[in-house]
């Protein structure tokens, strides 16, 4: 049975879907008032689907991710994650440990049973082959983000959560990284949930876009996108963006 405010891992007999049913989240402020951040959110992520959350800034997108990741448990409602499988996160900042090399950072998330696994292929795919012994402060932001992606994918997660992974990059770098992410995800399908404020990015990557309202967050619109990714350009892309923007 779901427990209010707690975290529920679904039983193995159930689907590998992620189901989110948050009934509210209030933040206590210093002056005794409380801030209503999330109103009610109800959605499921089908297995191996790619969902994007978009919406106005400060509307509670990152807060929602934190609840799903188990970093915030002070909400009302329940969240069910796939049984057994690991969860991986790519944060807004790459969050690599600066005192460990790229390779050490990536290997660190692996359980002991997989310490001998080869990560060469993944590194080459991400263009990090030459940089496995570099420390994070020797990497540009774009390369550090690639390393953070490698760390998430090496785990073969059941759920991959990404919080604006391409923000504050120049457009050319961001574009290359989007393509890298798509290649990785298509080669190693997993349930993915990504927050972005960039609507075009959302409709190009996702199977489904959830548009959040202003704070307190509700789902204002759900847009399912069944156009193949390769055809999402020009007129088609423009229409998709229009549908998301409402």
């Amino acid at each position, binding site marked *: 049975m779901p427990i209010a405010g707690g975290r529920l891992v679904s039983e193995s007999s159930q689907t590998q879907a992620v189901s989110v049913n948050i009934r509210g989240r209030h933040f206590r402020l210093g002056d005794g008032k409380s801030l209503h951040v999330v109103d009610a959110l109800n959605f499921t992520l089908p297995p191996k689907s790619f969902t994007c959350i978009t919406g106005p800034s400060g509307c509670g997108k990152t807060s929602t991710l934190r609840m799903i990741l188990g970093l915030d448990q002070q909400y009302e409602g329940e969240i069910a994650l796939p049984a057994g499988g690991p969860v991986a996160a790519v944060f807004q900042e790459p969050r690599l440990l600066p005192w460990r090399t790229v390779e050490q950072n990536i290997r*660190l998330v692996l359980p002991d049973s997989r310490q001998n696994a080869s990560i060469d292929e993944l590194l080459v795919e991400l263009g990090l082959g030459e940089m496995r012994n570099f420390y994070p402060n020797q990497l540009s932001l774009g390369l550090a983000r690639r390393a953070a992606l490698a760390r998430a994918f090496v*785990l073969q997660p059941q759920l991959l959560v990404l919080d604006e992974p391409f923000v504050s990059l120049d457009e050319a770098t961001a574009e290359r990284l989007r393509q890298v992410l798509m290649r990785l995800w298509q080669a190693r399908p997993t349930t993915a949930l990504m927050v972005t404020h960039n609507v075009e990015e959302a409709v190009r990557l996702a199977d489904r876009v959830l548009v959040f309202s202003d704070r307190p967050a509700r789902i204002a619109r759900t847009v399912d996108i069944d156009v193949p990714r390769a055809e999402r350009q020009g007129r088609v892309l423009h229409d998709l963006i229009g549908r998301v923007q409402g």
Partner: protein
Amino acid sequence: MPARVRTWALVALSLALFLLLWAVTAAWVDDNTLPTPLAVWQSLRVEWRSGELLTHLSVTLLRVLAAFLVAMTVGSAIGIWLGMKPLADRLIDPWLILLLNIPALVIIVLSYIWFGLNEAAAIGAVALNKIPNVVVTLREGARSLSPEYAELARVYRFGFLKRLRHVVLPQLQPFFAAATRSGIALIWKIVLIVELLGRSNGVGFQIHLYFQLFDVATILAYTLAFVLVMLLVEYLLLQPLDKHANRWRSARV
């Protein structure tokens, strides 16, 4: 000239200037309460040949090491705990201030009275003098631990040991280094007092002995010998360790 050679040349020059200043002053004063560097060197050789120097130096060094290990282990455990638990911190903080302000001499005397004139009392007293400093330093370190890395460890389900080794300790390294540096210097000075008051060997005991004989040259010989040992510890142990721990900071393309 390579930077390394230059550094060592400067150190040598600095030492030479010091010896020169000392020799000139001693020659000018011309009194056996201020022996010349040469007289100190001769005393050093006498003590070395008799084997006394090595015996007492190693006894003192072992006491420094034991007190240092006890102080660092106990102090850092308490410090990290206080840095993470604000309630415990508020409760214990007054004790810490009290302990920080009790003179070393009082702790040593009380320790000898309560626990007897033995090795455990001596080392315990030295460690107790140093523990509050370690606690305060490591408490700052624990307070400054990054919540971002803690979240990372949580999402990726790091176990306790993995988190400690790869996430927590590297963040605390500068605080450990600071506590070590200030620790060793403080500890060896207090060890000398402990030896003077209640032990029958060690550099402190020898200095007390030669004080009664008014033999300043031998007093200085022991002092310099121990300072030399501590310099070796600094350059051959602490600095290479520091360099290893900080290798990621200097790595830049």
